[in-house]
């Protein structure tokens, strides 16, 4: 039971990160119907941005306040990653509207390959470790054999995720951008006729998705303390799995899917085999797509003839 509780906490932490990435997939899919294959690599890139700013702040500027460092790194990473998201959409996806069906996906694969190798070229192929920012843990429960703990890192990750999701939810549900975004999802042409700047709305969607990925990237770095250029692929696929599982196009679905995938992965590693933990995620992806492509909270698609 104690073991289970500990794994549950670990799973939720991992799931928060997947959920944040999954939101980027689901928003982009919702608005332009494309699988943004490069999103995982944007996440990886944001982790590097966070890493470098963390180093600048701590080693060069000598900042010691953990909260301040974390906050600055988070904000800077969000801004700079958002710029990447904007630029990618502008250069690689926008010119393809109205091109043939698979063009955006192929272009996205190109961006994905480019990004991971770009980071490899400019930052080198080796793993990049950072000293742990916070080590403390809160002991939730203790007996002779087991200790169930919630580390400060996990607490920060869950709190940050929850706060940002609340802000994000407000943005999508209550602001004019949110309305424009939802309108574009329903019917892009009609939205344009009603005076919504569709291009800008799509751009903003990418910017928002990238910013959320940057949050995930910063938290990932905080949690694992190490990042490498190839770290975008597997979390990317898992987050996509989360988006599909939750029902692609559905925002609460993405978060729910992320948490489920995080939990499944953690429990799978804890109780079955750690070697096959990635296989579990891939299998879920295949099974969901074959048997329930609309996911848990998604709407079923009616084929247009």
């Amino acid at each position, binding site marked *: 039971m104690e073991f289970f509780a500990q794994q549950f906490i670990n799973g939720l932490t991992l799931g928060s990160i997947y959920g944040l990435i999954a939101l980027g997939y689901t928003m982009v899919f919702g608005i332009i119907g494309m699988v943004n294959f490069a999103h995982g690599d944007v996440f990886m890139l944001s982790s590097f941005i966070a890493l470098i700013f963390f180093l600048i702040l701590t080693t060069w500027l000598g900042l010691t306040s953990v909260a301040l460092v974390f906050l600055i790194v988070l904000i800077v990473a969000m801004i700079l990653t958002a710029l990447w998201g904007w630029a990618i959409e502008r250069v690689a996806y926008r010119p393809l509207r109205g091109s043939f069906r698979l063009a955006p996906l192929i272009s996205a694969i190109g961006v994905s390959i480019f990004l991971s190798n770009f980071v490899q070229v400019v930052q080198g192929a080796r793993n990049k470790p950072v000293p742990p920012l916070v080590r403390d843990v809160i002991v939730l429960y203790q007996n002779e054999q087991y200790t169930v703990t919630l580390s400060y890192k996990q607490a920060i990750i869950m709190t940050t995720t929850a706060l940002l999701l609340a802000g994000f939810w407000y943005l999508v549900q209550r602001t004019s951008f949110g309305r424009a975004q939802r309108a574009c999802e329903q019917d892009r042409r009609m939205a344009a006729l009603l005076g919504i700047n569709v291009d800008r709305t799509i751009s903003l969607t990418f910017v928002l998705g990238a910013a959320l990925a940057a949050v995930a990237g910063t938290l990932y770095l905080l949690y694992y303390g190490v990042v490498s250029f190839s770290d975008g692929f597997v979390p990317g*696929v898992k987050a996509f799995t989360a988006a599909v599982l939750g029902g692609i196009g559905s925002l609460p679905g993405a978060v729910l899917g992320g948490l489920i995938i995080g939990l499944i992965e953690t429990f799978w590693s804890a109780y079955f085999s750690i070697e096959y933990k990635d296989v579990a995620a891939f299998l879920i992806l295949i099974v969901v797509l074959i048997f329930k492509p609309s996911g848990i909270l998604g709407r079923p698609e009616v084929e247009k003839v």
Partner: protein
Amino acid sequence: MAQGSTTQGSTTHGSTIGAVAPTVARRSGAAFSEMLKDSALFALVTLGLSIPVVAYRTDLGQGTGLELTGRWGVVAGLCLAVFVLRLGQRLLLGEVARRREVHRLATVDAAPVVARAGRVLGPLTLFVALTLPLLAALASGGLSEGRYWIDLGILILTYVMLGWGLNIVVGLAGLLDLGYVAFYAVGAYSYALLSTVFGLSFWICLPLAGLFAAAFGVLLGFPVLRLRGDYLAIVTLAFGEIIRLVLINWVDFSGGAAGLSSIPRASFFGIPFTAGEGGFAQTFGLTFSPMHRIVFLYYLILALALITNLVTLRMRRLPLGRAWEALREDEIACRSLGIDTTMTKLTAFALGAMFAGFAGSFFAVRQGFVSPESFNFLESAIILAIVVLGGMGSQIGVAIAAIVMVGAPELLRNLTFLKAVFGEGFDPNEYRLLLFGLAMVCMMVWRPRGLISERTPSVRLGGRPA
């Protein structure tokens, strides 16, 4: 014709050119300063993107932590390069738009030129491919000295074959398969296991490997081929990764991450390439040379690649091949014409997988060693890039893309002056994938139907099958 065959291309272009045309028509100083401003904006964005990933490099230092090295010179260079490129592009686009305005009626048609080039290029490439060992020997002054070229030829031809195989799936049937390398792996491991465990010869294993790969294709394809295009792509990717992870972790079966080694070498239809009694050299009265095997392998992969090509060209003119192309164009219309879309997709998938299986078993026999790391997603992506850059459906395009993509970085590596320019540690191979990715994006943006985009009809009314 040009407009017709690249409808998508011209619509995506239309907006850019349309936006630029009026400013260029006036060609005033204001227009030019607008261009400057635009290019400066591009450079500014590049600056933003370069901070901090380009500007600071992280390296493991003496202690435990990472050290930062500033590289603002590189950033400045990048920004300048983007500025110049963007300005050049705007000027060029403007010029093209102005010309088009002038010659609006007398449209300059580029397509026939490209097509003619393709017609000449095909036989020429074939000729070079057929005589490569001879050419290499003549150029380097001996068969052994030309080994580098023949090895390079084998490498390129392997990718040509994989590209042609994937072209059946992606180019003809329009199914995006991101896990193609899984079938390559199935073929390689089939040969490795069949030959080491059961002692079967290469010539028995080759067809078996193809069949196994095709069977895997059917097994995977059956449940997933109903899915819409991008879902299918992701599922095939997941499948490819699962195969790789199983190969890594199922140590008893596949040798795990260490792979399988000492796989038997290929023989000349039963006659081994050995120095002693009954070997190839002795049987044919030649002096023994290890190059015999290499040359044999070269012609083996050439033959396999050409068979792939031949079958593809044949299939295009058969009802099944035509159904594949129709499927790529409009699946719903296909169903309304009584075509079983799932079965039709399945045949394309299985045939593509079969050729990957052949190629895989060739890979195993050539290397004498297989390990899961040869079959990662990147490999799939490279093959896909070759197909995309070759123009999805164009056979000669795929061959040229493979030569350029695989051969060029190899050649560049040996150019010493590049090291003088970019520093000692410069390795063009590092930039290979970076350029692959960029090229894929550029192709989708500018020529989504590929460099050689003209589609040859499979049959003509004025005359018999083309």
